């Protein structure tokens, strides 16, 4: 349930709420490039601190947001353990720090911007590419569906874990992963059917 709070817009009147969706998307893109290009564990820690600050500034409750991100953070920790083993502590801090910073920045965007506005900004930004065959409406829709898919997939993962636990298969990765993959694919098909039935994507 808590994972579903990810990507949910929280109405507010902060500085970040008042910025246009396109400006924030552009800012997120630039920040992502900076996070990827600048190397080192110290910079990664700074990025996390800045992202946490922005998230707090957005009015989001940090405890609730971090609880909602628990599944993603667990994956980041596992990735960190792997990277420590492969490349040592400094590299691990950099990889995990960069990843968490990007997650927090993306969450800040979704907390301060309604999905509809994000969709409009993507459609507006991609309109010049229409002569090249790009369908801005479809890309905008895909963008918003992607935002919805992250918490939805985390919820399905939680349900698959509970089902494995209920059958005494908590140590079986197969018992968790196979139903998860099947359900994610099934949910994607259902969503496709629902969009098709609603005529979404038929707009023009």
């Amino acid at each position: 349930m808590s994972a579903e709070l990810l990507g949910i817009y929280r109405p507010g009147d902060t500085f970040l709420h008042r910025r246009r969706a396109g400006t924030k998307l552009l800012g997120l893109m630039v920040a992502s490039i900076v996070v990827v290009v600048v190397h080192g564990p110290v910079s990664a820690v700074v990025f996390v601190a800045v992202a946490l600050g922005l998230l707090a500034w957005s009015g989001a409750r940090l405890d609730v947001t971090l609880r909602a991100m628990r599944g993603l953070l667990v994956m980041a920790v596992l990735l960190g353990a792997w990277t420590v083993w492969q490349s040592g502590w400094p590299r691990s801090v950099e990889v995990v720090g960069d990843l968490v910073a990007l997650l927090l920045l993306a969450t800040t965007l979704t907390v301060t911007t309604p999905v509809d506005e994000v969709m409009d900004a993507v459609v507006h930004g991609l309109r010049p590419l229409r002569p090249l065959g790009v369908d801005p409406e479809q890309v905008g829709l895909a963008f918003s569906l992607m935002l919805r898919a992250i918490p939805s997939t985390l919820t399905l993962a939680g349900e698959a874990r509970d089902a494995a636990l209920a059958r005494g298969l908590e140590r079986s990765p197969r018992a968790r992963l196979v139903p998860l993959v099947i359900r994610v694919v099934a949910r994607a098909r259902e969503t496709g059917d629902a969009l098709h039935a609603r005529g979404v994507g038929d707009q023009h």
Partner: protein
Amino acid sequence: MSAISLEQVTVRVPTHDGDLLVLHETSLSLTEQRIALVGPNGSGKSTLARLVNGLVTPSTGRVLVDDLDVRRSGREVRRRVGFMFTDPAAQLVMPTAREDVALSLRRTHPDKADRMAAADKVLADFGLDGFGDRSVHGLSGGERQLLALAGVLATEPSVLVADEPTTLLDLGNSRRIGDLLLSLPQQLVLVTHDLDLAARCDRALLVRHGRVEQDGAADDVVSHYRATA
């Protein structure tokens, strides 16, 4: 009232053991206001319902809605035919109630302020005032199904196909949604296991083993199904 017709329609689905015929050759004309499709699980009634707005395409024959061929004029047909799924979780694709209804309104209301105002009005019409900023995941089963219905009807289709819309609901919500569906001005094609609800329709079709076994007044068809299930 829309006119839905199936002309010598069959539906086959590929399996490892060759094609499976899930709907035998069927010809129908559906012109009543409220039509129920009843029958056992896996009988082909959902396939029959899904043909009406192109979610399933016929292997042979053709499906017409107001003389529009569903295969050739899919876009126009989907604007006339709304579809409501059993599980609203699959149907609600936006994070909040207002955004989900607004998604349906993007074509008819390009201006964002207009769209949001229209979405709020639709929510109010369905008794969901004050739900606009609520997460769709935080709603109860009945509220979600109501929201899914609001999202579908926001585009003002002339036909609504509802595929077991009350199956996942408790008794109270099942009655509420059932009553609402039967009171709609739209032509209704209702797939349901709720035989009391089916009996209140104008016409019912009993689908069994991929064939329309009985077709007639809802009371008669439901009685026959009760006796032979």
